[in-house]
């Protein structure tokens, strides 16, 4: 199992979670949408895999570098 943590590039709020644990994702599929400085910022899957865990909830504040989701890329 190869697990990668998808981190936030910015400080902001979690506006909407688009994919649940167990979802199969392709590269560039949107996993969740952050909100920062009036902008909605999609967080995309860096590669093909299955989402192992979503680490945040809608409405949470997140910091730059904070883990948002864990992706299993072996599946």
């Amino acid at each position, binding site marked *: 199992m190869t697990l990668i943590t998808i981190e936030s590039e910015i400080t902001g709020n979690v506006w909407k979670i688009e994919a649940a644990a167990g979802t199969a994702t392709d590269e560039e599929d949107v996993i969740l949408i952050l*909100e920062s400085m009036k902008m909605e910022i999609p967080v*995309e899957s860096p590669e093909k895999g299955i989402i192992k865990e979503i680490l945040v909830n809608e409405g949470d504040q997140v910091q730059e570098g904070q883990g948002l989701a864990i992706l299993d890329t072996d599946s």
Partner: protein
Amino acid sequence: MKAAVLREANKPLEIEEVQISKPGPREVLVRPVAAGVCHSDLHFLDGSYPYPMPTILGHESAGVVEEVGSDVTYVKKGDHVITCLSAFCGHCNKCLTGHLSLCASPEVSRDATEESRLSIQGETVHQFLNLSSFAELMLIHEHALVKVREDMPMDRAALIGCSTTTGVGAVFHTAGVEPGSKVAVIGCGGVGLAAINGAAIAGAGQIIAVDRVDSKLELAKAVGATHTINASSGNAVGEVVEMTQGGCDYTFEAIGLKSTAEQAFQMLCSGGTATIIGMIPVGTMVELHGVDFLAEKKIQGSNMGSNRFRVDMPRFVDFYLSGKLHLDEMISKHIKLADINLALDALKTGQEARHVIMFN
């Protein structure tokens, strides 16, 4: 209504039929008369700032109120308004300490459980910066607009909605330029020209415009630059330091590049302040010489000119109507919504001032 929809980065916008929701209690339906095509739209078009799609770009507009929600008392049908992406809640810590443009309250947009303001046959269209102005109608929070004088021409008013507020605001509010000070502005697009104009209104003693395009440097002189430097020579920093005999009190970066942000810092005299207005791509780091901090050089960001737009924009309208704020020169062409892609292409080449969409 018709709107220019972005479905994929780096692809042309498509004019599509879009459904717009009814105003909620604190929302206002605005019929835009004019919409500026701003350089920041390009950052989202080319993906350097990712945005969820489909979306409708555009964030610089002026129009007429069409319909108001049940709780709205500030405007009524027929009022002339300028929209602003700096929607404020009015009661968070940022708002209550006078930093309205930094308000991050989610209550000015609809949350994920409500019907989307914009949609295409049931598919959510993400509203861009709470505005989405490349469209025949806009549904926005009442705190995303300001009422203005009806003798203000709408195409000029639209520019106040973003580029003027961003550039002049950076000079007045973020930096606080004092009369007599030495100023340099890197990048003479709409925002940079507005910063130059703002520095002139603020009474700066020396205003140096830096750009690579001679026609833009000419425009810079027309709006208040006292000196110009064509940066193609490759030594803009050296030339600025020489012209000012030791560097500037205030510099402004209005492009959004690592290199020019660093140059803005290098152009300062001791105690000077560099203000970065341009949108530097997500993930880019900026490097400074640590020793410069001993000379009390400062660097700071400015977002939408640290505005209090309900106060600022009517003042900018007065500045225009009294001849202090130059907006006529900023508009190179009036276009129709259907020609939006040509305007975006023209902006990419960097040769021209702004195109303004006129709705009729």
